[in-house]
């Protein structure tokens, strides 16, 4: 197994910092499916939001798990700051894969849905969970201690972004018309949720593909911005 990934995993799991977000995730998953039957895509939309919120918590805890000096030593041995943070992103993404698998398979395994689930629905369910998790990870990384001095600002900034992205349609309604296009620059959370709730048939359409590509592209841009910013901080 890759040594940096092993290093991240051992360090993180031994810190037990994963316990609070994971417990909250599990409890809320149980609460969400406490009655049955449930509509498939609506349920997946709701648990995707849950993953989206907790991804921020997982990201901050992974990025802050070691002291700065320990991080520096690892970067010196790896000889690449980019590589070190890429592996951090990879590790958080793996947590995202795990949670997405749990969220998608749990209601299937326990027969929580009102109808028989199809393969496209399972695939879209998994993708929506995973992509929202990655999106949340990528913008939360910009609030972590490498870039934000005060840790209180990390949490405040992240909570603010999470709230704004989820409340985007409400904000859009109260904004003056001239300012409304600005909302299109926000992380594309609401468009995905709206699409999931509308449960179109068929699911795999050009619109779905573009939506997913938009989220992937947006996340990649944020991760590149993170890398660019840490290098800028190093040289400034």
């Amino acid at each position: 197994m890759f040594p940096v990934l092993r290093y991240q995993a051992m360090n993180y799991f031994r810190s037990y910092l994963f316990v609070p977000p994971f417990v909250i995730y599990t409890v809320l998953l149980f609460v969400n499916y406490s009655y049955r039957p449930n509509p498939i895509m609506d349920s997946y939309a709701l648990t995707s939001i849950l993953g989206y919120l907790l991804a921020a918590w997982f990201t901050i805890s992974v990025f802050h798990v070691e002291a700065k000096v320990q991080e520096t030593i690892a970067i010196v041995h790896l000889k690449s700051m980019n590589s070190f943070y890429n592996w951090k992103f990879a590790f958080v993404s793996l947590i995202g894969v795990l949670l997405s698998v749990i969220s998608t398979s749990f209601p299937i395994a326990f027969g929580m849905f009102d109808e028989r689930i199809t393969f496209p629905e399972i695939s879209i369910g998994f993708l929506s969970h995973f992509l929202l998790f990655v999106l949340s990870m990528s913008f939360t990384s910009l609030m972590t201690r490498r870039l934000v001095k005060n840790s209180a600002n990390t949490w405040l900034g992240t909570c603010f972004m999470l709230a704004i992205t989820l409340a985007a349609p409400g904000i859009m309604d109260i904004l003056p018309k001239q300012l409304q296009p600005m909302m299109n620059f926000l992380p594309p959370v609401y468009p995905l949720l709206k699409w999931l709730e509308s449960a179109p048939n068929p699911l795999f359409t050009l619109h779905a593909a573009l939506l997913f590509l938009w989220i992937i592209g947006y996340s990649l841009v944020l991760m590149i911005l993170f890398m660019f910013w840490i290098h800028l901080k190093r040289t400034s």
Partner: protein
Amino acid sequence: MIHIDHISKHYDHQKILDHVCFSINREETLAIVGHNGSGKSTLLKIIAGLEKPTAGRIVKKHAEMKIGYVPEQFPNNIRFSPNEYLTLLGEMEGQPLPSLKKKITDLLHTFQLSDYADIRIQHFSKGMKQKIGIMQALLSKPDFLILDEPLSGLDPQSQEELADILNKLKYEGLPILFTCHERKLLERVADRVYRINQGKIIAESVFPRVLTMEIKAVLSTDLPHPELHLETISKSFRIRDRELVIKTTEEQSNQVIVKLITNSYKIRSVNPSYS
């Protein structure tokens, strides 16, 4: 070996380093002293490649020169054992596992931590953690070692132990650059000292060094100590019970060792020290 060529560093328009310029030669131990906030640590980070200077450059003899870096204050909560931690760091460098394992075993032995190889570092004392800090820097067999305040916060015994380790590394020919506040370490280890103030080098002192070998030997028979006439080859020696401790020059140390062995002594240790 390394030339620091007019290095300057600014943070938010604040001048941290101002045209710092000096060279580090082969087999030389160099110290940088100065008040807190004088720019010492920033200079070390720039030489180690962890930060980029605002102006100036670091000229290395070889582009792929390996630099070992020991940061100030080794982290407290490392959740790995020395074995796990050093193995992971070595693997990150791309070192092959069998030779890496051997290197780690040797390092643990040298630093007298073999008995603690599988205990998590977070449970170690400050001195032991600092040893791990130096071990990780030596893992890649560096051409040059940088230490940021290696004795900071250590008790006198740990300071003594670490000074011995640095002296040993110096004797093995490893060029060392360190910052410190402890006069004792400067006197024991440094060949040259630069004083830095407000980012500028304001003074340079050179310590001419005499290498002394301290030889400890134990008489292996019950007979009294034989007449060795050590006065001719050593200025300083003492006898306690069966043990004999002699200080001599490097050139004469072999002669002393041969003499001791032929007179039924067992050599316990030979330690270099600089005075």
